[in-house]
């Protein structure tokens, strides 16, 4: 059943028909998909959801497509891991990791947003899709477009990690490196989007695209045993994921699928690009654009489109935001790998590192459930940790040499 009602301006409330557009004609405010939840009463139950395949589409009624997805039908439904070893290190009672570093098919949560954006693009009749990306989105658009037989153009800053460039190029997409930062890429793309008749996932189909992030929140609640978490920590670039996790919880409460647990939302950024965290910490609601300088390139958006809304959601929910240095990012990536066996990308280091800092400062209580959203895979950002890990010790192929090494290690 399709319960999508309209696109609605987040500022003035004006409603628009469902079409590939993203700004309000009246006030330039961003448009958001709104639904008639009443229509789902008594139909959209836990039992129905549980009976469906384990993909993000088990919640399809709450995603803005008509009928079945045509792109990315297998995406989503990643593990929620109880992080017992990390709990001990951090000194907290109940910690979970939502592990989207293994999201299908391109190992980041972007596969969620892209499958919605491209399914919608196909519905609208587009044959070429495109995006401005800090890396993960490019790979996801390229892969999902390839699998769906769509042409794709992806625009990235020219100095991205090798793994991200390769992880998009392999899919035969047209990959364009722009001299400049992500914000320059984005600026160009909003012009390109106006001129070429393409579906730009984060420009003209952005309202649909962004809704895909809600599936991460739905899954967390289902995996917690149909419970909303008390505290969720989310990495922020544009701030979209942060707002959509909050929306997912509100929707499940409204539909009676979970009880209101007073969930507080926490945002995480790297200090070298922390316009949203800064605005929260300074208790203002206007975001000052910054020039990004951090190894957490996937989060390096200096002028975040949803910054204002992320800020508001964090503060209204009783959460907080934090930022950490690049050294702390690397340390947190190692900590996550060594305690939980999860190799997350820099954004994951940001999330864990900021959580750690907020636990120490008392902003995150130690005795209530915390969920960390780990959203990307470490294999794509190897540059960040290559100098921080132990190199293999080289020995000859002789037992004698190994015995000497073992003895030096104190092995009995």
């Amino acid at each position, binding site marked *: 059943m399709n319960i999508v009602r309209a696109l609605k301006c987040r*500022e003035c409330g004006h409603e628009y028909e469902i079409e590939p557009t993203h700004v309000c004609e*009246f*006030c*330039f405010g961003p448009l958001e998909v709104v639904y008639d939840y009443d229509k789902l009463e008594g139909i959209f139950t836990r039992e129905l959801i549980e009976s469906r395949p384990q993909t993000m589409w088990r919640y399809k009624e709450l995603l803005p497509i008509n009928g079945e997805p045509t792109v990315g039908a297998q995406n989503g439904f990643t593990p929620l891991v109880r992080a017992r070893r990390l709990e001990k290190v951090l000194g907290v009672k109940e910690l979970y990791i939502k592990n989207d570093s293994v999201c299908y098919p391109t190992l980041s949560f972007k596969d969620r947003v892209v499958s919605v954006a491209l399914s919608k693009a196909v519905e609208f009749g587009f044959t070429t899709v495109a995006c401005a990306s800090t890396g993960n989105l490019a790979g996801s658009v390229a892969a999902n477009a390839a699998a769906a037989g769509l042409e794709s153009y992806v625009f990235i800053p020219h100095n991205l990690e090798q793994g991200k460039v390769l992880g998009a190029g392999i899919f035969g997409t047209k990959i364009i490196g722009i001299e400049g930062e992500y914000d320059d890429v984005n*600026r160009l793309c909003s012009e390109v989007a*106006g001129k070429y008749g393409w579906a730009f996932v984060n420009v003209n189909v952005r309202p649909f695209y962004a809704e895909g992030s809600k599936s991460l929140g739905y899954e967390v609640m289902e995996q917690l045993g149909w419970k909303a978490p008390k505290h969720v920590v989310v990495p922020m670039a544009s701030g979209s994921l942060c707002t959509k996790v909050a929306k997912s919880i509100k929707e499940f409460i409204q539909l009676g699928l979970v009880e209101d647990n007073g969930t507080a939302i926490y945002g995480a950024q790297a200090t070298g690009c922390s316009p949203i965290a800064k605005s929260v910490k300074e208790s*203002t609601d*206007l975001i000052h654009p910054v020039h990004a300088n951090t190894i957490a390139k996937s989060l390096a958006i200096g*002028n975040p489109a949803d910054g204002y809304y992320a800020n508001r959601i964090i503060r209204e929910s009783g959460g907080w935001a934090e930022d950490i240095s690049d050294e702390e990012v690397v340390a947190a990536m190692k900590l996550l790998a060594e305690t939980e066996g999860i190799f997350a990308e820099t954004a994951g280091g940001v999330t864990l590192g900021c959580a750690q800092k907020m636990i120490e400062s008392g902003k995150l209580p130690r005795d209530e459930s915390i969920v960390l959203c780990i959203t990307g895979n470490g294999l794509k950002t190897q540059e960040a940790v290559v100098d921080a890990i132990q190199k293999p010790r080289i020995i000859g192929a002789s037992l004698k040499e190994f015995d000497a090494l073992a003895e030096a290690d104190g092995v009995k």
Partner: protein
Amino acid sequence: MKLRVYLTFNTATVREPIIWKLGKTFDVMTNIRTAEVKENTGLVGLELEGKSDVVEAAVKWLTEQGVHVEPIEQNVIEG
């Protein structure tokens, strides 16, 4: 052409009559569609309409004044 932009003003620029100056300096029609101005910062949604080269020059001038200019989307390209 018609260009829709967001302008962000900082502490140094927020008290200046920059949009008025813009209208005096360039032959463009300015139409403020949304605005939020505080002590240290301001955000204005502005529509600029005029000849393409004049609109482009006006945007360049705004940047030179220290205003952060973010195009929203150029969906109507004329002339």
